[in-house]
């Protein structure tokens, strides 16, 4: 097993001779996307024309399907099959190869036992989408409903410790808090939120003998492949799962849903390709969501601001049969110094759709609490919020005592303060007016963990010099295609145009997929390893080839650059070498595993958000006026796509602070907002003058390239900066997100 010490040596990435690493090159697949020719899962061309599947959802939250009458639907024009719990084909148990913490959808698909509103109970396939929809409306169900626990706030008394988890304690929190001269004890609420990816879940499936091919919209290739194989009760080798382009994931497409299961089952039954897409309403009711979290923060400080006691306790919810904990307190374990500490989670089980990971699970909701609490404590102490954080900056991880791999939080805050003009903030709320608007400034820190998972990649060079990287990795809009092309080109010293990247196929060497901000580091490190192995193979090929100008040279002295392989001033183009010495091409694989000592370091990405808002004191409307973030996230691979990722995350924070929430209808267990008119994601007019910058950083404890993730850091803390700006603008301290006009009006002093 490797050590982080192995990662400190110079590499083609750190040397960056062609300058491709960090360069803001255009998106690899960008041309396909701006011309509308990137085929998403529902648009893939099947070997023969597909039939259309439509799902029918349960209108009750808990109970059983007592009876189903499919006769009218079966007789409707164009109908090929109608399935209900009573006639759906047998499906295997999922689980053996699944992550046991997965928030899997209903299992099996079309189960007669109903566990949440919107669970699918029927499925119709017809020759056209119109016929399938019309027939679906003709299926008649009878239900035997049972009492259901639907409302989080009504069930807080049953909150329990998540299985296998314990509170984290350092020192004696209770005693230290009781004795602290300055104390804060407040509860903050982050609401239930939905991913609202633009592309609904979709699958196109067809069979060739006993092998099935599915094109589906999923973030994790292997997980989807194994899940489907288990469901179909066939070996994984008979399932090919392809996911080339994904119209947004954000954690919500980390798992397989009923579109995948039923498209594959129906295609087998009919001997014809079948495609199935969720409706927008089904995306809300029958996938996963970010659960609501109640967070109690207790801070006990000395008069100079140093924290003696810190506690963050989070209560959240999940679906009864799909345990998942929104770890809203975890981030705080590494953020601020305090000798006496308590963090923990409690879970309420409900009969509503499954909770699951959504962009920066834990941090996105958790930081909404602590980063406001720090603002409140700063005011109590008469300190600037940045100064309070500086006084609680730890030298080592405050919980474990481990050294930080890198930590530039202080620089993020000070650099951001200077560039944003933080010194213009009046600490007294409600003092600045611009016409009808009360104007305020707020800030918050950002932290998000860094991870590296095992992954493989394959790379080949053909006789024409084309280098093709292949990996069972996904690009959900994050820029994976692009950064893998940059890494491969820089590693092998070839122009970017010489590199092809092929992703999203279970036939390719496996990578864990997109999630947890680990994608670039994990997939990229494997691609880098594959590239290094190809360098080695080509060096040996050249130095062993009597017709090569490098014949007889030491392979260790071979260099790559400008499309050439060389020793000193003897060189030849790669394509000439390969065409002559290995005309069938050269293929190698590479892999990455976490270093044995990686956990000896506390590894995170950091940032600081600064926001300026206007509050209309008559309507309670809050408008963003300006937002700026400074981030430190290791070596940046692509200035353009990384910036898009980080500002995209910040904009999610704007939505979190001002617009986004969902509620459960106590009558039915459905979500009140179930489309994009009811669930308000930020629109273009909501986002004004928003930008960010990255600090220079290389984290040589993170992976061989010193990179980290940027996909989730941008949302961490962003909403709290806006809430703090709202308080500064008008004196309304709102601890229940989002800060919509009715709450602002009610809270105005």
């Amino acid at each position, binding site marked *: 097993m490797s050590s982080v010490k192995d990662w400190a040596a110079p590499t083609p990435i750190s040397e960056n001779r062609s300058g491709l690493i960090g360069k803001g090159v255009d998106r690899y697949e960008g041309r396909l996307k701006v011309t509308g020719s990137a085929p998403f899962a529902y648009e893939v061309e099947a070997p023969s024309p597909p039939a259309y599947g439509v799902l029918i959802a349960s209108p009750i939250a808990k109970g059983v399907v007592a009876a189903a009458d499919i006769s009218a639907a079966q007789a409707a024009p164009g109908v090929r099959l109608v399935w209900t719990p009573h006639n759906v084909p047998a499906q295997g148990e999922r689980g053996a190869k699944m992550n046991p913490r997965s928030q899997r959808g209903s299992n099996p698909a079309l189960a007669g036992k109903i566990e949440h509103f919107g669970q699918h109970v029927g499925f119709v396939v017809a020759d056209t989408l119109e016929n399938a929809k019309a027939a679906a409306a003709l299926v008649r169900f009878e239900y035997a409903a049972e009492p259901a626990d639907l409302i989080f706030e009504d069930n807080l008394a049953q909150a329990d410790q998540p299985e296998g988890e314990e509170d984290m304690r350092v020192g004696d929190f209770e005693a230290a808090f009781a004795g602290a001269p300055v104390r804060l004890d407040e509860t903050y609420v982050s609401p239930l939120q939905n991913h609202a990816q*633009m*592309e609904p879940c979709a699958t196109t499936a067809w069979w060739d003998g006993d092998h099935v091919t599915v094109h589906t919209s999923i973030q994790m290739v292997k997980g989807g492949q194994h899940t489907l194989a288990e469901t179909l009760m066939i070996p994984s080798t008979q399932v090919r799962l392809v996911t080339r382009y994904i119209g947004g994931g954000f954690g919500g497409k980390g798992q397989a849903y009923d579109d995948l299961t039923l498209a594959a089952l129906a295609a087998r039954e009919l001997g014809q390709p079948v495609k199935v897409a969720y409706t927008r309403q089904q995306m809300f009711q029958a996938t996963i969501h970010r659960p609501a979290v109640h967070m109690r923060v207790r801070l006990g400080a000395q008069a100079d601001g140093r924290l003696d006691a810190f506690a963050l306790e989070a209560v959240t919810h999940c679906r009864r049969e799909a345990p998942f904990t929104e770890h809203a307190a975890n981030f705080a374990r590494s953020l601020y110094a305090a000798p006496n500490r308590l963090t923990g989670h409690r879970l309420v089980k409900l009969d509503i759709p499954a909770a699951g990971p959504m962009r920066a699970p834990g941090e996105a909701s958790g930081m909404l609490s602590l980063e406001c609490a720090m603002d409140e404590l700063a005011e109590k102490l008469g300190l600037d919020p940045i100064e309070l954080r500086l006084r609680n900056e730890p030298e080592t991880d405050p919980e474990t005592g481990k050294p930080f791999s890198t930590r530039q939080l202080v620089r993020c805050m000070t650099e951001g303060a200077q560039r944003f003009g933080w010194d213009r903030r009046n600490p007294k709320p409600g003092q600045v007016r611009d016409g009808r608007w009360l104007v305020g400034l707020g800030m918050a820190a950002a932290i998000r963990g860094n991870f590296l998972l095992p992954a493989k990649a394959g790379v080949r060079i053909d006789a024409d010099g084309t280098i093709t990287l292949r990996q069972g990795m996904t690009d959900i809009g994050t820029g994976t295609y692009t950064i893998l092309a940059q890494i491969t080109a820089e590693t092998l010293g070839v122009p970017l145009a010489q590199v092809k990247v092929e992703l999203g196929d279970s036939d390719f060497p496996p990578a864990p997929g997109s999630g947890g901000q680990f994608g670039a580091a994990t997939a990229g490190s494997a691609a880098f390893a594959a590239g290094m192995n190809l360098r080695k193979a080509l060096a040996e090929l050249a130095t062993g080839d009597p017709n090569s100008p490098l014949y007889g040279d030491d392979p260790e002295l071979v260099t790559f650059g400008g499309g050439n392989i060389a020793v000193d001033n003897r060189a030849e183009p790669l394509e000439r070498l390969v065409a002559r010495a290995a005309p069938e091409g050269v293929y190698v694989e590479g892999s990455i595993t976490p270093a044995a000592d990686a956990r000896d370091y506390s590894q995170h990405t950091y940032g600081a958000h600064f926001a300026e808002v206007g509050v209309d004191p008559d309507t309670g409307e809050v408008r963003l006026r300006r937002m700026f973030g400074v981030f430190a996230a290791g070596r940046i691979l692509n200035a353009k796509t990384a910036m898009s990722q980080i500002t995209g995350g910040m904009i999610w924070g704007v939505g979190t602070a001002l617009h986004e929430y969902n509620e459960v209808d106590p009558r039915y267990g459905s979500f009140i907002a179930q489309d994009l008119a009811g669930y308000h994601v930020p629109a*273009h*007019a909501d986002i004004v003058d928003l930008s960010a910058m990255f600090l220079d950083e290389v984290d040589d404890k993170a992976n061989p390239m010193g990179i980290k993730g940027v996909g989730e850091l941008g949302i961490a803390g962003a909403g709290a900066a806006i809430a703090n700006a709202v308080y500064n603008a008008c004196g309304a301290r709102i601890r229940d997100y989002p800060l919509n006009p009715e709450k602002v009006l009610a809270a105005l002093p």
Partner: protein
Amino acid sequence: MKTHFTINGQAASLDLDPRTTLLDALRERLDLKGSKKGCDHGQCGACTVLVNGQRINACLSLAVTHEGDEITTIEGLAQGEALHPVQAAFLEHDAFQCGYCTPGQICSTIGMLKEAADGWASLATDDLTADTVLTDEEIRERMSGNLCRCSAYPQILAAIRSAGGLA
């Protein structure tokens, strides 16, 4: 119902189910899958196409109502290898991530620039008697019918300014 229209300069004649939306006709009958279905309810704008030069949500329009219309989709914008200036600007400014809303954003931009050139006002227009000036605020308001969950709005604004000669 037999319906005739022009799509991306080509005459098309389809025998259509009257329930078929323009979006489904494009995607499922004409193999023009660039126009996207994000909500099917006119809320997200991913299906935006140009009909007789004006932007509409193709999911809210029944295909049979377009007899004789000239329809332009994302597939009809580039001239061979040469991208339409709006497409090129979106690529250069990284005005998208996952790319699912992008065809709608691009078609909407083209329609919006024409609306502004024709003097149409928006909610952000202060003086209805003056010539329309596409300020940033105007662009944001006029493009708010096209949602981007990846949240590429700052880059979309930059691309539109560049393509519209407003930079």
